[in-house]
């Protein structure tokens, strides 16, 4: 969030806007920082810093490492 703000890619307001648009259910099913990273990711797509395609591929790569840090190492 600090890095993306400093780079002019997003603002506190754009972070909050996506959080608000997630709807009430997100507050029951996601943790605080899960909501943050989802908002930051959407903001980066909107800002053109990353494409949905690139982001999807990277997320799949990370997921394949395993569910825990232990499994990833």
């Amino acid at each position, binding site marked *: 969030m600090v890095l993306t703000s400093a780079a002019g890619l997003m603002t506190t*307001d754009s972070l909050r806007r996506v959080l608000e648009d997630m709807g009430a259910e997100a507050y029951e099913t996601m943790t605080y920082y899960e909501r943050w990273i989802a908002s930051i990711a959407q903001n980066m797509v909107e800002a053109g810093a990353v494409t949905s395609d690139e982001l999807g591929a990277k997320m799949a790569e990370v997921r394949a490492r395993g569910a825990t840090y232990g499994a990833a190492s």
Partner: protein
Amino acid sequence: MKVRIKSHWPPGHIRTPAYLRGKIGQIERRIGLFNNPEDTAYRQTGPQRELVRVRFRMADIWGARAERGEDVIEAEIYAHWLEPV
């Protein structure tokens, strides 16, 4: 100076608290010009807007349900949300 907070309910990223919309308060001070979150939330660059601190009596917000009607709360609200009373 007395003002009423506009009772507007547009979609978007609005920082004006819902519970204060339509309520009447007193201007406590004018703070200065700031970027408008209604624009910056969507990467728009609109004009800076004046932010104003408004003081409300609890009785003017909650009516008879206010525990202590003479207590006050202050909120910082953009001037374009204020209308003269």
